[in-house]
């Protein structure tokens, strides 16, 4: 396999006239393997040949998210994501959407605290692949931000904020939670942006942000699907090889101070049912306790017999549902226990029950619970690999955050390395009451 991939790099170098090198490969099973290549301008290319269907997913990941923004200009990374669909000199406004839709792909994108990515999925026929390369390589560095489009799209984003935060109890709660739980780290700022900052958004500042972070050496192109790796690599090298690398800002890593006392924030909104979130500072995805937390979360919230579900919903009848949210942040983030409380339920009692159950983790897990957690995570891993979009997303996430795409396939190794006997210690490190921030939405006036 390695020799064939090395040959693909040689062929791409020769045909595109730019240096292309193989930077690793990984075989997962008889069906799935992935390879990483680098172009001379620093662009990372991940290829995952997948013949399960005659389609391909094409994703462009940039190592820039809302954590990279000026604290007084929140929402810029996300707003720029919207503007990326507005055209270049070669492909004017509307052409990208029109051309992709004609070919059966709706363009889409997402912005998060750590990254931004753009996606297309198309059938593998005709010149679909070449066309995507043409559009994506063009807008990577040649976007045009005209004033009229800027203003119109800014209204769209403000309206998106109204929908996802200002008129959404859960969205408002999430924003309040992160703002309270983090005092210094940029994770405290909402990716959608504060309305006051959106009102003040300036075109030249957005353009500067674009010129700073959108460059081949800050990007990973992931292609998963029914494509010949050599032919795909040749076309990618031709499409992107001419883009220039640029100097990137040094990482400005801010370490959140250790939380030493419990915090609480309460909102009132016109809701029927209160929402209670108990959140704890949690390790980043590659820190050792993260895998432990994944196992613990299965035990706490997944299934009818999960500890928190059984206690809050079934036994004490304080809630109608409970979920656990463990987002794979690149830097230390939060683990959230989200409770849909019954109307009139005592919020203090809910928090006490959550903490009691978390404290009980000190007694260890039963063998049955450990099997449940491992099997559940194994199933989830396969579910993420069931289609080309899931495969591409997993590769892009791990490469962008950790420069290691192989982590997309090795979850089982990480979970199997967790020592069951040490799970109580991991739980104690995370689920301390002084590490806890509670955010609550109660019925009442206020908000939007």
């Amino acid at each position: 396999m390695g020799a064939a991939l090395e040959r693909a790099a040689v062929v791409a170098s020769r045909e595109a006239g730019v240096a292309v090198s193989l930077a690793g490969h990984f075989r997962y099973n008889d069906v799935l393997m992935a390879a990483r290549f680098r172009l001379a301008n620093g662009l990372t290319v991940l290829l995952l040949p997948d013949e399960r269907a005659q389609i391909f997913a094409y994703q462009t990941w940039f190592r820039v998210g809302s954590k990279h923004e000026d604290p007084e200009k929140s929402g810029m990374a996300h707003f720029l994501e919207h503007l990326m669909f507005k055209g270049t000199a070669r492909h004017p406004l509307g052409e990208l959407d029109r051309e992709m839709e004609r070919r059966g792909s709706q363009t889409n994108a997402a912005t998060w605290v750590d990254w931004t990515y753009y996606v297309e999925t198309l059938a593998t026929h005709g010149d679909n692949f070449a066309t995507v390369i043409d559009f994506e390589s063009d807008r990577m560095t040649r976007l045009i931000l005209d004033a009229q489009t800027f203003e119109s799209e800014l209204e769209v984003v403000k309206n998106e904020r109204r929908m996802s935060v200002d008129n959404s109890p859960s969205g408002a709660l999430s924003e309040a939670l992160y703002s309270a739980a983090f005092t210094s780290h940029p994770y405290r700022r909402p990716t959608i942006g504060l309305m006051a900052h959106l009102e003040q958004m300036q075109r030249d500042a957005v353009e500067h942000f674009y010129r700073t972070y959108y460059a081949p050496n800050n990007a990973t192109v992931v292609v998963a699907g029914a494509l010949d790796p050599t032919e795909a690599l040749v076309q990618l090298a031709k499409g992107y090889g001419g883009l220039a690398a640029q100097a990137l800002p040094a990482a400005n890593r801010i370490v959140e101070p250790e939380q030493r006392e419990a915090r609480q924030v309460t909102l009132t909104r016109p809701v029927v049912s209160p929402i209670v979130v108990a959140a704890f500072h949690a390790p980043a995805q590659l820190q050792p306790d993260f895998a432990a937390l994944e196992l613990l979360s299965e035990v706490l919230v997944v299934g009818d017999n999960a500890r928190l579900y059984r206690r809050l919903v079934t036994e004490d009848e304080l809630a109608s549902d409970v979920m656990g949210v463990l987002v794979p942040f690149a830097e230390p983030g939060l683990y959230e226990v989200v409770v849909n409380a019954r109307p009139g339920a005592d919020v203090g009692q809910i928090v006490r029950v959550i903490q009691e159950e978390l404290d009980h983790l000190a007694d260890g897990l039963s063998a049955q619970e450990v099997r449940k957690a491992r099997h559940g995570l194994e199933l989830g891993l396969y579910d993420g690999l069931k289609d080309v979009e899931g495969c591409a997303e997993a590769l892009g996430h791990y490469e962008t955050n950790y420069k290691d795409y192989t982590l997309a396939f090795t979850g089982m190794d990480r979970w199997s390395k967790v020592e069951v006997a040490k799970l109580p210690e991991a739980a104690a490190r995370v689920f301390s009451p002084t590490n806890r921030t509670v955010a609550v939405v109660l019925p009442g006036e206020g908000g939007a």
Partner: protein
Amino acid sequence: MIGKSSLAIVQEDVDGATLLVIEDHSLPVVRFLVTLRPGAESDPSGQAGLTRVLMDLSLRGTTTDDRQAFNAKLEEMGSHLSAVTGTEAAMWRGITLRRHLDPTLALLADAMARPALQPDEMTPLVEEIVEGLRADRDDDETLAEIFLRRSLYEGHRLGRSPQGEIPDLQGLASDAVTAAFRERLRPGAVVAAFAGDLSVAEARAALQRLVADLPKGAPVTSTLAPLPRPRGVKVVIVDKPERTQVQLRLARPALSGRDADALAFWLGVMAFGGTFTAPLLHEVRDVRGWSYTAHAGFDRLGRLVAPMVFRSAPGLEVALDCVALELDLYRKLAAGELASEAIELARSYVLNRYPLEIATSSDLLMAALRHQLIGQEPEEVFQIPARLAAIQIADVGAALRRTLDPAGVVVVMVATASAIEPAVRARFPEAEVRVVDFAEGLGLNRS
């Protein structure tokens, strides 16, 4: 065997039930959808929620295992099994590691044939469903859909939520649930669909086991009264405090998926509002920046008549302008005024997108199942591209004109009534305007 992609659908009759199988050995996982027909549409008057309760209750213990033991076995395998109740059908939906397929399906077989249906499990279940229905009102998009259904089908059984209505749920007797379960569970009411790392023989054996202990006999059927059709413009303001944005729906009952016009009508709706470049999104979002989202939809695979719905969320200050624009666009659509370029672009989009929609075994399984549930052969999945390609431009306009009445439409606005009601009445004097509280029907005293 039917197959026009790398995946093939196998359909068989197995002991009176219907089996669909798609083998896919790329990952050691099996998904299954065991469907029971009909769905919540068959809930008798005064018992809205009966199907939801019996489906959920079946997973809360059997005569073999109580609730905790049942779920402990399931969870230890990492398997997932849940009940989903829709209007037209209900289903047990599951996913399991290949190596745990047999014991997972053994649990489901027990739930189908020997559910405990204990009253002491039913009482808390009903409370949880009621709380869920109450919590639904806290999300404006869900709220808009609830009142859209009620407003479109006022006085009709389809106006009820398939999850139930709170007064009916609270009055539901355990005996009624037990009787309904015994009456409904028949092999002929079951369509079992499997996709993943199993063979056809294994799937056949699994279905034989699922239906082996079910009572024989004809399955129940459901008959619905004709649907009401809106005459004139009916505006329903769902009053909720402090809204700075309006969740807006504009809709009219359209067609069943079995109707000869369904595919051409659907293509017209897609051309009008099913993509980013379609006229609806272009006018609302690109030209005016009024709403983050604006699209039109129609379910072409419904057995019952499905509505055509515009969905958008304009800011409060432009909401009435947006309603006026959408009404104008709706009237043009109902008159069949759709540019042929828009139709061809939509056709190109849906034809080229189709391979993506049936790319995985689970996607293909769901598509095949939906065709089967509306009385078509599963192989129809593979005929859709040819049928779409054969539609004439004039067919689309004709289907739109036959289906939509330019004068009859329902508009639902989740908004703060005090901020908008007088302006709505002044701006649309011909409309019937009604204001309802967002918590109507929840049985809560909010005074």
